[in-house]
């Protein structure tokens, strides 16, 4: 990995979140166009974020929620 790769790597989250300014964004994309390593990192990083976005949340189990309401009704009733 080169110095450019390292710089690219440091900015990838901001890049994925659309927070990089236009000029940096263009520089980064220019580097990625010619660097296979950085392309793999950005693609797999994007995929990682997407997987958690879609599959990372766990619903409160129904029985846990029922118990929460039960505890709270005791609390507010007293």
């Amino acid at each position, binding site marked *: 990995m080169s110095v450019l790769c390292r710089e690219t790597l440091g900015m*990838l989250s901001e890049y994925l979140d659309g927070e990089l300014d236009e000029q940096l964004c263009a520089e980064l994309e220019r580097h990625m166009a010619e660097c296979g390593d950085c392309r*793999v990192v950005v693609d*797999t990083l994007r995929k*990682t974020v997407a997987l958690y976005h879609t599959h990372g*949340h766990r619903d409160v189990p129904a029985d846990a929620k029922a*118990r*929460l309401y039960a*505890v*709270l009704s005791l609390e*507010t009733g007293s």
Partner: protein
Amino acid sequence: MVERHSGTVYNLALRLMNNPQEAEEVLQETFISAYRALDRFEGRSKLGTWLYRIAYNAALMRLRKRRVPTSSIDEPLLTEDGEAMPRQLVDWTSLPDEILLSGELRGVLDEAVAKLSETLRGVFVLRDIEGLSTAETAAILDLTEANVKVRLHRARLALREQLTTYFAPTGRVGARGGAYVRAV
């Protein structure tokens, strides 16, 4: 209040505690404390932010009481200037349907988050799993926004490494195949 916010409280607690039982206890504690203190809620922050702070502090208290920390320090390798260097450069973005459609994926995702250090977990759950803004995450965790961004970036890189280990085509044989099966 419960319907709207219990999901994020639960997910924050679950990821921090790594234990559904304790996550439920934190969930109950949070709402009980909140109901008791509701008349003191001054509306300077959003109700959600206030609740998530209560939850975060409740989880932290419990983590401190644990004698043996369960989190490992599986952060990415850092270079001298603090940049994280990727170790694995294999493309696995086209996951086969059998992984996406099975319960296996969730197991792998859960296990990878559990290996993050606590400081990265809180940021990652709130930002990338629960979708809160950088500003709100910073307010909940008592961090600067810059710090939230740095931690989020580190968390993502560390998770990318973990997922690569599981999902890279070459990672699906031999010893790693064992880990892969266990994660189901």
